[in-house]
């Protein structure tokens, strides 16, 4: 119990540190550049507190529940060497963690709002919700596929630069045929997918897997999963835009 409280306070401190640079930069700009009083910022302090507490609870809960189970499973599966279950696990891990990714929820909601405001989709709350959910499902699917490719790369020792470069060539190709308004959102969703939830679990999976295989270096083979998780969402969201355009 006492241990948990210490960890929780650490997590609160951690999210405070996460928010601090932003608050610092914005405060400096407000006071020295715009010469505004700090009252406007203070009115947002309540929401800031929720951000800090929410993020801390979230990470604390992840560490209590998701990380030990996920890491235990990743290690057990890597040791077992059953390729089918390993790949199924990689997919579920990627899909599940991405659906719950706060940054993605934020971007998807914003994208739906902009699309509705500019008449790209119907202005009803229903249409916005569907559009946002469609985006999130697409990105989650993409991260699931990314982890499958990443795990297979570690198992089969494929060249990482070659795959990544090939992927980005495909991105450029798809960009030329995708509707213009999806391009920005697609490129952004690549960077969004890999933050709080996905990174620790995915890194554990990659490094653990490479460590349990003979002749693999956990430095050159273990990292690189996240790179796939940033690439495939761009491809999938571009494809999503192309398909939406047709229907």
């Amino acid at each position, binding site marked *: 119990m006492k241990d948990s409280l210490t960890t929780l306070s650490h997590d609160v401190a951690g999210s405070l540190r*996460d928010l601090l*640079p*932003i608050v610092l*930069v*914005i405060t400096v*700009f407000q006071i020295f550049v715009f010469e505004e009083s700090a009252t406007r910022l203070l009115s*947002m302090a*309540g*929401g800031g507190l*929720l*951000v*800090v*507490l*929410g*993020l801390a609870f*979230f990470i604390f*809960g992840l560490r209590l*529940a*998701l990380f030990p*189970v*996920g890491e235990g*499973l990743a290690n057990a599966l890597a040791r077992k060497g059953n390729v089918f*279950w390993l790949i199924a*696990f990689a997919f579920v891990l990627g899909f*599940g963690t991405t659906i719950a990714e*706060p*940054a993605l*929820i*934020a*971007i998807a909601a*914003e994208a739906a709002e*902009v699309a509705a405001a*500019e008449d*790209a989709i119907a202005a009803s709350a229903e249409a916005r919700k569907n559009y946002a959910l469609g985006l999130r499902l697409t990105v989650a699917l993409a991260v699931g596929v990314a982890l499958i490719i990443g795990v297979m790369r570690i198992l089969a020792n494929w060249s*990482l*630069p070659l795959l*990544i470069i090939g992927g*980005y060539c495909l991105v450029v190709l798809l960009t030329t045929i995708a509707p213009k308004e999806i*391009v*920005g959102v697609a*490129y952004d969703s*690549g*960077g*969004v997918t*890999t*933050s*709080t939830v996905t*990174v*620790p679990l995915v*890194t554990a999976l990659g*490094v653990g897997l490479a460590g349990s295989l003979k002749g693999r270096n*956990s*430095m*050159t*083979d273990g*990292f*690189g999963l*996240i*790179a796939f*998780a940033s690439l495939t969402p761009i491809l999938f969201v571009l494809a999503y835009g192309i398909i939406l355009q047709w229907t």
Partner: protein
Amino acid sequence: MDLILGSVPFIANSAIDVLPIAIFLFAFQRIVIGKPLPNAGRIAVGFVFVIVGLGLFLVGLELTLFPLGKLMAQQLTDPAFLYETVGKSVTDLVWQDYYWVYLFACAIGFSTALAEPALIAVAMKANTVSGGAIGVWGLRVAVAIGAGIGVALGCFRIISGLPLHYFIAAGYFVVILQTAIAPRLIVPLAYDSGGVTTSTVSVPIIAALGLGLSEAVPGRSALLDGFGLVAFAALFPIISVLAYGQLAVLRERVSNYTEHVRHTEKEENDAI
């Protein structure tokens, strides 16, 4: 009180988001490992924290992070503010006149990447795995410089209205060139650094900044120009980390060379 009541629907929504992964993990544990979960009670408590935390975060996002990003964009592009600093009216502005935007973007990108916990974790892991060859601070500063330049350049793109994919394609072309000559050890780490920089807190702020800019700068549309900042923040750290690796190799060569020179000088002196 209002805050608490207002959080309830958000928490209910986040429960729907989190439940699938919980169910899958339990199923995997059962079917593949064949053992029930150890510490089931602790894990259940953990999931409650995850759900409540995600809900609270999303409320805070709506109340603070989005409005802050938009407010900054609005103030930085305020015609009165720009008139005061540059002395031009809105219609005469060129991209150079928005220098406060670039400065702010750079500061936000740099500082958030430097404080990013996911990056600290990756840097520490890289430090151990590389046997100390990759410094924790060196990597963090390299990523932060990349993120700062990335966000600033992304703002320039929004203000100038140039197509996003030109920049991204050019950026990845540089990455490909660097990959060919950078030390092999740093490559996967550099590729991963791209995704790590954009944290849960910085993404909403950066996204709101981009959308706010695209709404405020004359001739830009939120739909076409508003997104893409996060992509910049994810691309440029790859370049800067690869450069960090190349620099480390270069430094080693230089120090080897100077040592070699010193050595031969000493030998010459000894001979005399």
